[in-house]
């Protein structure tokens, strides 16, 4: 009796998990399926899970849309530039907080942690005025340059936790051999924190790629728009008919890089290295 009960429980569990997974991934499926539909099919009152005659019209049209292609390039360009700068500076600062003993380290570290409580939006207004004074409005500068100053306290914290776990003897023996801090940082510490670096890069990439508010405020002209800003203009709030196949095609192409990055990095993220610093 006990085994029958046990098997039933397992089956119910699997049914639950599978249906939850389907529900969670359904928006993605619907996005892809709608991108192959015609306008009539997206507006039809019936349930069309997959179009009977999938059409590539929307894809052909969007690859001829110069504004979309340019905003795609803009997104790739600004994301990579900002990612490189942020990652490099975050790693350097994490090194200072974990591998060097200097007076005031704890005070500065505590200050850094407390900035996590400041919502970035609360700084938007004065930063806007500041960038306006520099004549940076209408350029990529305001959305790229601040990252170079180790933007993201949570990322510094995550990397610091991993770097702090590396035994000190490693550095000491390198210093004995006459290495300096830059060499130890580059040749010893960085190779040992590859997994945390992968996680940090993933989070930074996702944050930059999805970012809407700052590009919206600073870019101003359509030739500079990044994908989220451009895609939001495809949807006209006050119009009765939306070009859904076009919007969904743009949506699919926008999410492809996110999916690729997630599939590469998922084994690091899902193992929960992220939360190793939470306890205590």
């Amino acid at each position, binding site marked *: 009796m006990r085994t029958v009960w046990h098997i039933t429980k397992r089956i119910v569990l699997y049914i639950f998990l599978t249906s939850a997974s389907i529900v969670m991934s359904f928006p993605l499926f619907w996005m892809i399926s709608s991108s192959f539909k015609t306008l009539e099919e997206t507006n039809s009152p019936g349930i069309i899970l997959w179009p009977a005659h999938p059409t590539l019209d929307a894809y052909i049209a969007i690859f001829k849309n110069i504004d979309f292609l340019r905003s795609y390039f803009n997104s790739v360009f600004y994301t990579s530039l900002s990612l490189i700068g942020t990652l490099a500076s975050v790693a350097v*600062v994490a090194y200072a907080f974990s591998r060097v003993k200097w007076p005031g380290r704890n005070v500065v570290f505590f200050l850094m942690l407390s900035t996590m409580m400041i919502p970035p939006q609360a700084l938007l207004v004065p930063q806007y005025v500041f960038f306006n004074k520099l004549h940076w409005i209408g350029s990529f500068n305001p959305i*790229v340059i601040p990252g170079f*100053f180790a933007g993201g306290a949570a990322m510094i914290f995550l990397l610091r936790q991993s770097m702090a776990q590396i035994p000190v003897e490693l550095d000491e023996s390198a210093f004995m051999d006459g290495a300096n801090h830059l060499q130890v940082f580059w040749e010893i510490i960085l190779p040992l924190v590859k997994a945390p670096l992968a996680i940090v890069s993933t989070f930074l990439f996702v944050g930059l790629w999805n970012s809407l508010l700052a590009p919206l405020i600073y870019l101003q002209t359509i030739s500079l728009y990044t994908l989220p800003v451009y895609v939001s203009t495809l949807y006209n709030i006050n119009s009765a008919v939306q070009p859904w196949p076009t919007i969904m095609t743009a949506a699919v192409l926008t999410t492809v890089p*996110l999916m690729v990055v997630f599939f590469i990095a998922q084994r690091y993220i899902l193992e929960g290295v992220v939360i190793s610093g939470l306890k205590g």
Partner: protein
Amino acid sequence: MTLNPYFEVLFTAVLTIGFIIVTSLGLGQLARFIARQVGASKRHQENTFTGYAFAAPWIVGFLIFVIVPLGYSFYWSFTDYRVTENTPPNWIGLDNYARLITNDPGFRSSIVNTLYLTAVGLPLMIAVALFLAVLLNQKTRGERVFRMAFYLPVILGFNTAVLLAWRLMLNTGTGIINQLIRALSTAFPPISYLNRGIIFVQELISALFLGISSGKFTLLNRVWEAGFPAANRVPMWVESPLWTKMSVVLLMIWGCGSMMLIFLSGLNNIPRELHDAADVDGANNWQHFWKISFPLLTPYVFYNLIVGLIACLQIFEPIYVLYRDSQPLVPSTISMVYYLWQASFRNFEIGYGSAISWVILLIIMAVTAIQFMIQKRWVNYDLY
């Protein structure tokens, strides 16, 4: 000077790197100089130099992008500064704050809407995350695939593209969600009653919140007098002021994957022996969860609550993408950050926007502080 925008930012980036290197060396030298003055050892001086030089990017960025802006916005919040005019800011004392608190229906709505998201959305989100975590903790085959499916929405997040996919699904007439509700309601009558019950309760709660923000409860009366919804009713997701916030809640629940991961690591940290001991005493699954797992998970619930609360206070993208400029809907859904954006970057009232920023900042700090104060009453750290 018109420069190609791509070269312009590359050029600025190179300049910035130069600036960072110079300030790092400068700060390091300064720190070493001070260390030498107070008579530290040679080795200590070197460490001081390295530490400050390596931490300089953050320290300098903190000064330029956090401290100075906070100082300026604090000053501007007492002025009538507008960035479009070339007049210097005039000191108007507490007028901005007074207007914000006593005489601004938009700001009032944004606070009440945020309250709805935290009071209705956040508990649902935490409950779903906890439920999924408990299911996944049963050591199933293919756990990796399930985890990926549950976490993927976090990565897609509030990307405009994904929000628009939701917009398509949430169409009242032709959207797939309502089509499924209609199909299931026709096929199984109990689901129809469940659907209508949920609609009724949701509309009552929503009308109550709308009443609080407008000061008039006529809508609540209308919903109450209309009584139990008719059989053909479906949720009016993004089209009725009664449902706009619920659509955002739906999006929040969809993105509960990161909370789920945190609960999973919490469940993994529970000592196996506790469950074994309970088995000996003949505890059932229900007791296992409420008597052992849940009390030990309270620190994780607390953590998720804080992080979720702060995230709720910062919601912007869904409101902008789904409801911007849609006049009848905007008051029912605007968030505080959306309101900040509207005041500062549409009307360019920098002084007023600064006051809003400071109120948001103070609310977030107060909420976190209160949470930390009351957590002792219910969070259980004993076994860690």
